[in-house]
């Protein structure tokens, strides 16, 4: 089963490139995970559909979210927690 991580970003977001790198690394390690990067200035419909409020937002496969930037450890922890528990 393939699971998708949605990462909402915008050109004005200064933390986003870092998070993007982290997510790319995570996805590389986990073959069943897929990453979709959405620039809200280009795809506003998707942001509307997912009811995105803040940038950066990571939407996990079970629709849980991580709002705001954090370091790699935190993101990994959250992902592990949600993907196992959720």
């Amino acid at each position, binding site marked *: 089963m393939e699971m998708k991580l949605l990462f909402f970003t915008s050109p004005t977001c200064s933390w986003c490139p870092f998070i993007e790198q982290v997510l790319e690394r995570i996805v590389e390690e986990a073959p069943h995970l897929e990453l979709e990067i959405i620039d809200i200035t280009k795809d506003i419909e998707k942001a509307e559909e997912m*009811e995105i409020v803040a940038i950066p937002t990571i939407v996990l496969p079970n629709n849980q979210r991580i709002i705001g930037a954090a370091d790699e450890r935190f993101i990994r922890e959250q992902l592990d927690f949600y993907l196992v528990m959720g």
Partner: protein
Amino acid sequence: MNISTGIKELDYMIDGGLRTGQCYAIKGTAGAGKTVLSLFMTLGALKQNIPVLFISTEVEPSKIIDYVKSFGMDFDDYIKKGLLVVDKIALKPQGINVVQTDKFDLSAIIARTKAKMDAIKAKLVVFDSISAFIAEFQYEKTARSGFMDFIREITKEDAALVLTAESQISQEHATLEEFLVDGVIKIRSELIGNQLVKRISVPKLRSAQPISFENRFIINKDGIMILRSENPPTIYIQEEKTGIAKLDELLGGGIPAGSVILIEIDGETNYFPLFLTTLFHQLKRDKGVIIHSNVHMHSARILEEFNRVECDITSHLNEGNLVFIDKYNRTVTAVEAREMSQHITTDDMISVTVELMEAFTRTEQRSVIYGDLTDDVNILSETDFLRYFALQSFNVKEKRGVAYSFINHNAISREILARLRTTADIIIRFSRVNYTNYIECLKSSTGATFLPKVVKFRDKYPLVEIIG
């Protein structure tokens, strides 16, 4: 571009209407009517065919559309015409877990809002409410600073932005958003008696002078009503002043609204100085005055007396603040009137009373009645007179007005005087001993009576001076 709010008085308070490119905050405690006011603003703009984007953070759009129906508004038509979008924005969809950190911005809702504004070319954006929205964030400070970007970006689009914000009762200091918005509309509610009274004011208004007073704010099924406090309806007046500072002080600060004041004089004392001083004071405060004219107290004489003491009441006469209710034709002389008064019947008195009460009811700011009762007592039968006096007193109390009734206590029977004293709330008595005039208060509903004080009459306003 100025967008009328649809509420005339509010437009006046915010200098003509909501300006595009500016942001307004409606502040108030829970239940003050912030959402209702913002919905009426929405309707006001829609009626002028100005497209509106209404964003709710608490309630589903369908609920809002249902809710406004209870105020007789129908948003469905406007939505179909493409003039209105009602939307809900929340931090997350219901039932979804969120982990938050403090490093984020709100560019997503800015972009989403802008896209919706573009779709209908919205000139007014209502955001209800910022407090509920911010409260959802774990890091409120970051959310607030992010929201500042929202305000800047939306107003840049040449649209007016209206935010509603909850103010806590204890929170008197300005919150962050108050610095950034161009206008603050504040609704305050307080409990007076058992009635919740709401007041609206504009403490901040950039680019215009905010008005410096609070107005009554009333929400009912017919909509929103704002009563300008320059002319408050008499029912909300709590305390009246006589206009003679010393007398107010002696009476414990003033006269409670709804009082009947009996002023007893002997035949030798002239009550006109007191009468004219209080009358002129009421007129100066733009209070309406009704004068129940008779032989002693008729229009020609009053105007003459005002001229004599050099008080100008022409403007008040022109504006109709002063109403004379004549028992006799106004053109007759005092002597003729005195003769005519002998032929007055109970029916005539009743019609005068009815006229008096109608005048009282017609305009709400007409709050003060003056009358000399001496003649009436002698013309009418005892029961008719007492009935008339009771009716007048009842109306005065009901309308929260004030009645000054002058009476010559030497010219009426002891029984009637006793009955009048029972009905009156305040009794002031003038007496004269060895060419010195005294004023005393025999009874007061506030309990503030006083012993005789020397009173001096002067030629210029104020005509009465109480000494000692």
